């Protein structure tokens, strides 16, 4: 009887561990962005949102590819990353400002380019071989097309 109880308890712990390792929300996010494709990466100096010469060259190299992306089903999001010191809010803002800087540099070359952006505060040492202070120019298919859809409920006051 005791061994049976121990067995049940071990099984419960295993199930709980699996459930904790993949929260449903995170799993859905991963699934939803499974088609994420990185077109290019622009690296930044730690703590800075100023484009380097290398960064400008990387952006220039991407322009021909971005110019060809005229299908409405494709969405470009510029995604900033920051590991710099400061609180999480500062890091997220810096990451988004980096993305903004890259977006503006692309717009100087492609005036009609109209990307979305976001920013991530990341822990130092994560991300494998990727430079942690960076911006990725990312392509998604069929994710959202707000300009052509009805809005179910507009909330104003």
């Amino acid at each position, binding site marked *: 009887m005791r061994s049976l109880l121990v067995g049940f308890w071990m099984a419960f712990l295993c199930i709980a561990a699996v459930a904790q390792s993949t929260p449903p*929300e995170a799993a859905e996010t991963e699934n939803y962005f499974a088609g994420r*494709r*990185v077109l*290019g990466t622009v690296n930044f100096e730690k703590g800075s949102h100023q484009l380097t010469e290398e960064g400008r060259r990387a952006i220039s190299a991407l322009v021909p590819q971005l110019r060809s992306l005229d299908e409405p089903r494709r969405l470009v999001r510029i995604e900033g990353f920051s590991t710099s010191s400061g609180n999480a*809010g500062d890091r*997220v803002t810096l990451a988004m400002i980096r993305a903004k800087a890259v977006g503006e540099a692309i717009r100087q070359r492609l005036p009609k380019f109209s990307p979305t952006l976001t920013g*991530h505060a990341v822990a130092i040492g994560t991300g494998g071989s990727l430079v942690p202070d960076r911006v990725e120019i990312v392509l998604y298919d069929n994710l*959202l097309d707000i300009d052509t859809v009805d809005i179910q409920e507009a909330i104003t006051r």
Partner: protein
Amino acid sequence: MTAAPQRPAGAVAEPDAPVDETPIRTFVYRKFRLPEFSFDFDQYSLSDEGKKAVSEIIADLRREGRWFLLRIDGHTDNVGSAQYNTRLSVRRAIAMGSYIATHEGLDPTRIFVKGHGDTQPLADNQTAEGRSTNRRVEILVLLPKAANP
């Protein structure tokens, strides 16, 4: 803070790859256009009222229990150059997006920030009241199409 989905290091996608022809996967569930989300002239700091309002919105969305994306659109009045206003509108949208990510704990992967400059006015830019109305951010809540109630 969670990180974006990772990819193999050095992998760069080919943009010329065939476009996935499956239908657009989200729809706009709600659009929030509130006076609390307006800005003073040439400013991009969220007001305390705006912070409170967006916290209530996120709390409501969480109570509903649906998985959602947010698009945050920044706008300006028509004072200043188009380039300046585009940049200012992005800063306004960033202020909101960063607040939601850091204070409300929403994964930034689910946030899409966009600046529209002065291209989408709601009111007459000839009046002070109209310009004030146009200096704003809007929050669009997107749901997966399968979740369309």
